[in-house]
């Protein structure tokens, strides 16, 4: 299981909502989360081998109202910020929130309004657990 799928499963299980890669499906269930990988680099260590990879991951928390988005983003913060240890088949060195921001509420067909909070995390991991 890759880092991407391990993280996907972890977030889905902890938040108990659908997690989508890159974008929302056409008719998404609300609330929903979108997971996007933004950038990555090998983390340098003092000894020669590079042991950790660091990725910036963007989570979009979608909901029908502000409270729903607040609740889910707070849960994600509690479950992921400061995470250390095994996650599926990978080992997480550390994870931390880099930034978060809201977008303007988006009007969608049928008079509904969709809310979104963007949360960026930096996550350092080892691909295969020893």
């Amino acid at each position, binding site marked *: 299981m890759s880092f991407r799928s391990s993280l996907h499963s972890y977030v889905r299980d902890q938040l108990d909502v659908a997690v989508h890669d890159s*974008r929302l499906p056409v008719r998404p269930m609300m609330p929903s989360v979108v997971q996007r990988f933004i950038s990555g680099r090998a983390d340098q260590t003092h000894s020669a081998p590079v042991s950790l990879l660091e990725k910036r991951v963007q989570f979009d928390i979608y909901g029908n109202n502000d409270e729903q988005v607040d609740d889910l983003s707070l849960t994600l913060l509690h479950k992921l910020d400061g995470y250390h240890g095994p996650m599926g088949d990978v080992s997480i060195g550390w994870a931390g929130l880099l930034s978060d921001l809201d*977008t303007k509420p*988006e009007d969608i067909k049928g008079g509904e309004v969709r809310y979104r909070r963007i949360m960026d995390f930096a996550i350092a991991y080892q691909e295969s657990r020893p």
Partner: protein
Amino acid sequence: MPTIRRAGDSKFYAIIEGGPQLARALSALDRKVRQDIAKEALTEGGRIIADAWANMAPVGAPPEDEHPGAYRRSLQDNASVTARSSASGATAAIRPAVLSDLPDDQQPQLYAARLEFGDADRDAEPSARPAFDGAQRPALAAISERLTRAFR
């Protein structure tokens, strides 16, 4: 929970801050000298990030994009890098420049956030954050080198 801002409420730009070490080192200097050194150092670092950002800025194609390459052009060579003194020593803001050949409502600053973060209907095409992540080490090295020269 950290402060939350709204994307799209303002023009998009990236910020780098000096941090407490810079503030401490600079506090020993005369105020005017301190401000000048901090601004120069962060401007040098900001230029490195602006160049990396320009190289990663997505280029669209017509008809979807009426001005292909405008976003990249607003960052290449003429990105606005401005520094000011702040509680943390100094803060530099890196912004896409205003392009004189485009109307006000089609300036890259206005749609950069949508490209950077994506939305429900389109993938993100991030460039500012990967540029910041990838170029932060050379940018910090340039800032450090400039400060070392100033303290010699």
